[in-house]
């Protein structure tokens, strides 16, 4: 069953910048869709457009979630979906957390807003979620403030917050980019486990081909606001058809395999400006 359908999505910003240009996406329930591309490819703007979080841009085309049209939906109905059925995590967890409130309160806040639950139940849910994302001593840590957590622990808090309402879709925008590689491995492991347990579909936005290779079922490669290639993850990685995809895969310096003397490069586009 298709959970999310995006058709001919185009996003224009003031000043004539077209960030997304006629994009189609399909995400099945419970699946992981990797959206990869370099800076400026339009991958993050796409996720914001899906969530209806681009008030100043002109967004055309259609976004359907679970059969319902999201584009053109009023703010109140969108707010009811956001957090509850579609959740989002970002690259920088610190800027997403309120420094004045304990993290348990912030997790509970989202839960209570959607479920009309009381303080006590909210707290109970927060503690349970912190435990589930692997935070030791969850009862005590729920009362701690964001600055008392490390980067990896904060991203765990964000994941707990995103998943406390058991959403159908989690949009993860560069969820491990700001983290060290050993902490990134922990968070990727956690996302893998949670996905198996909860059946939440994930739209995984990243520039890291390795992250996509380990997690995604389907892949869309974006360049200049368009999808240049799409398909099942093994197809895209082992039999890429598009020259940009081929270049992107080849130019990543790897820790395994043969070592080229020079890395293949995509084009001279970067030097000719």
């Amino acid at each position, binding site marked *: 069953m298709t959970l999310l359908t995006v058709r001919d999505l185009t996003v224009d910003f003031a000043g004539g910048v077209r960030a997304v240009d006629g994009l189609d996406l399909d995400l099945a329930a419970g699946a992981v869709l990797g959206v990869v591309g370099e800076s400026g490819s339009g991958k993050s703007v796409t996720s914001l457009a899906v969530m209806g979080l681009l008030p100043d841009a002109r967004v055309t085309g259609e976004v359907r979630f679970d059969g319902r049209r999201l584009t053109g939906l009023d703010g109140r109905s969108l707010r009811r979906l956001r957090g509850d059925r579609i959740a989002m995590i970002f690259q920088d967890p610190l800027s997403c957390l309120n420094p004045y409130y304990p993290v348990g309160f912030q997790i509970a806040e989202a839960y209570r807003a959607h479920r009309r639950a009381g303080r006590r139940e909210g707290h109970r849910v927060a503690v349970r979620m912190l435990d589930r994302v692997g935070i030791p001593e969850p009862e005590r840590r729920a009362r701690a403030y964001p600055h008392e957590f490390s980067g990896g622990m904060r991203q765990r808090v964000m994941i707990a917050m995103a998943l406390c309402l058991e959403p159908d879709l989690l949009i993860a925008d560069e969820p491990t980019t700001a983290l060290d590689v050993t902490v990134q491995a922990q968070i990727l492991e956690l996302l893998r486990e949670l996905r198996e347990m909860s059946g939440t579909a994930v739209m995984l936005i990243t520039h890291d081909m390795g992250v996509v*290779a380990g997690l995604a079922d389907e892949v869309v490669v974006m360049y200049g606001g368009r999808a240049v290639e799409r398909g099942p993850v093994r197809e895209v990685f082992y039999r890429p058809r598009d020259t940009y995809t081929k*270049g992107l895969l080849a130019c990543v310096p790897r*820790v395994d395999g043969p070592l080229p003397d020079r890395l293949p490069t995509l084009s001279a586009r970067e030097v000719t400006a």
Partner: protein
Amino acid sequence: MNAPLLQARDLVKRFPVRHGLTRRLAGQVRAVDGVSVRVDAGETLGLVGESGCGKSTVARLLTRLIEPTSGTVSVSGRELTTLDGRLMRPVRRDLQMIFQDPYSSLNPRHTVRQILTAPYRYQGLTPDEPVEELLERVGLRPEHAARYPHEFSGGQAQRIGIARALALRPRLVVCDEPVSALDVSVQAQILNLLKDLQQEYGLAYVFIAHDLGAVRQISTRVAVMYLGTVVETADRDTLYGRAAHPYTHALLSAVPLPDPDAERARERIVLRGDLPSPLAPPSGCPFRTRCPRAADRCAAERPLLRTIASGHEVACHYPEGRT
């Protein structure tokens, strides 16, 4: 035997941590805690580690941008740590640096020409090569000389930083995360450029990065840092093929491979917990709190770097494959 191009011995850097109105001393961060490295002419030493391991502090100590708490740095056998500013200046011709953020390391009010001639001005030299030629060497165009840094993309701005470092024809360039702010396709171009320039000028690099793939691509030897110390050092192929320190193993196994079958099939060592605070490092081995092989001895006794094979040193009581 000739003296190595660069030799650092037992470098220590502690930063005081002060609290409250009286700025009372609350403790010390041991950013670098006894690091020794050597770099020979024409080679690239990769220095790899996660945030807070002290690799950038080492970069600043090697170039004497900051003073060590103790320890020494010498270039071609000449001790730097005792030189005053006046005597240090000619040494800087041989010792240049490239930074992570290409924009913040270029003066926004200066044209590229002013930026690239500044090294000569400070040294009281006349440029022996026109700015236009220098630009072409790093893959930019002569007419770029009249432009300002904001007119360039990140990759181009990094090329300007590289050109500035090369202007005085140094023998050693310390590169502190030179490609981490760049997209992968641009990163590949910069890594290739650094390799080309190394061959052309016989440069030596200290290449500092957290990206193990980039370090492998450019380095001849690699040193792995953890919590202010070097835990393993070996030539590139040994380090990536037969690492002996459990931390190096964990680091390598944590890097996601851009290969779906390999990535899903591999055995991964996922480290527990976070980096300990450098304010209060663990007793004994700094890695023992996260180490899957830690034993009682690791808490009691700090392992020192010891040679386990030619050119391969490891600071571990129980190195992999040798117990």
